[in-house]
């Protein structure tokens, strides 16, 4: 007799109720083992059993109103059973099922304080939605990889049920949450980084302790075919503003940008403009503002007919401590501004 109890969440398909035509079916509870639960129990090797299976149709549970009602029912069921762990899926790359699994886990974990784990393909849309605070084991893309994917789910769910310490994602096989934990190491940071560097220089494998986040790929803008017909905007993230910072732009953690008219100006004089950027020594920039907004030499190129014109405003913000979302938002608003004014391209200087 197993001592540990798991409750398993699956959709209509894995419960054998039917496919897409049954996706609107409401919550039901099964006592007999169905679908992945059979495989999981085998892997738990008698240490844990699935005591109940909760089933919801994928369409049903993805409706907010239904979710509210279903979550109340799930709460009642789990309060009665008091499982050691709650397991959902795996959902592979199924979008609705993935979101259902992750959302139910998120609810059970945060509201009922029961350890939860689900599994899915790393590109499942539920991962960016719920992956930060929930254990989502990495699985294959389709259910064809069920037998390959279950061992990780079984292993982590058993550890969670036993209340064992959960190690970093790379050891446990769940998708990185982005959480960082302090841990004790016998070697100092200097020793570890030197060893890492030597491995890198010798072409040996090494693992970083501080993985960088990935950035999305940006499609390059098409090239300009006739520069002499182009009007160019000048932008800086170096924080150049008229002296006194009339728009009260933030010196860091920017959420907006300033727009300053240079009509009729051939240069930006020291003492009329200054950098208010909070992240670098602004002496050189304030001593000669062209180091951020190169208006002087752009005017020369304009006079010579190499370009048609310069946008009548320069745009400025402070790029320091600005998160990606704010940066994208500022960028989108700048682009809307420039497109509205029929600007062909922009030269952005960044400190």
């Amino acid at each position: 007799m197993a001592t540990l109890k798991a409750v398993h969440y699956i959709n209509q398909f894995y419960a054998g109720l039917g496919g897409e035509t049954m996706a609107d079916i409401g919550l039901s509870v099964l006592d007999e083992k169905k679908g992945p639960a059979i495989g999981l129990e085998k892997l738990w090797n008698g240490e844990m059993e699935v005591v109940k299976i909760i089933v919801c149709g994928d369409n049903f549970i993805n409706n907010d109103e239904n979710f509210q009602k279903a979550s109340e029912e799930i709460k009642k069921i789990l309060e009665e059973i008091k499982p050691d762990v709650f397991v959902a899926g795996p959902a592979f790359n199924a979008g609705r099922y993935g979101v259902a699994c992750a959302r139910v886990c998120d609810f059970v974990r945060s509201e009922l304080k029961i350890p939860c784990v689900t599994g899915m393909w790393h590109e499942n849309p539920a991962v960016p939605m719920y992956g930060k605070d929930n254990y989502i084991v990495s699985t294959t893309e389709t259910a064809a990889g069920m037998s390959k994917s279950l061992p990780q789910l079984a292993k982590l769910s058993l550890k969670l049920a036993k209340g064992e310490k959960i190690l970093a994602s790379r050891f446990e096989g769940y998708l990185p949450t982005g959480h960082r934990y302090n841990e004790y190491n016998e070697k100092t940071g200097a020793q570890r980084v030197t060893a890492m560097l030597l491995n890198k220089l010798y072409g040996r494998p090494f693992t970083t302790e501080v993985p960088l986040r990935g950035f999305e790929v940006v499609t390059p803008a098409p090239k300009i075919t006739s520069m002499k017909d182009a009007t160019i905007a000048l932008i800086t993230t170096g924080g150049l503003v008229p002296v006194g910072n009339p728009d009260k732009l933030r010196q860091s953690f920017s959420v907006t940008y300033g727009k300053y008219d240079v009509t009729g100006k051939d240069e930006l004089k020291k003492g009329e403009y200054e950098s208010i950027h909070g992240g670098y020594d602004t002496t050189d920039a304030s001593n000669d503002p062209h180091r951020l907004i190169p208006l002087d030499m752009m005017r020369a190129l304009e006079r010579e007919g190499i370009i048609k014109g310069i946008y009548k405003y320069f745009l400025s913000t402070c790029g320091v401590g600005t998160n990606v979302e704010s940066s994208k938002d500022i960028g989108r608003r700048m682009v809307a501004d420039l497109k509205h004014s029929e600007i062909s391209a922009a030269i952005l200087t960044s400190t």
Partner: protein
Amino acid sequence: MLVTAFTSIAYNVGANRIVFGGDFTAPAGDPSLPLEREKAYRRKILEKSLDALTQDVEAPFVFTVNESKEGV
């Protein structure tokens, strides 16, 4: 297009047309140069920037003005 001395960051965050600027805190200049030579250098940065804008790129690419810093 982007003018910066932090080309590695620009490259890694996915800026597509990057011109190496003169200085970290003065991307469109070089405070170590006398004024007129700095202006000439700034012009070269801008010419390279315009050049970058007229070229097809498929992924992040760093254009360099001149490794030895023109005008020095």
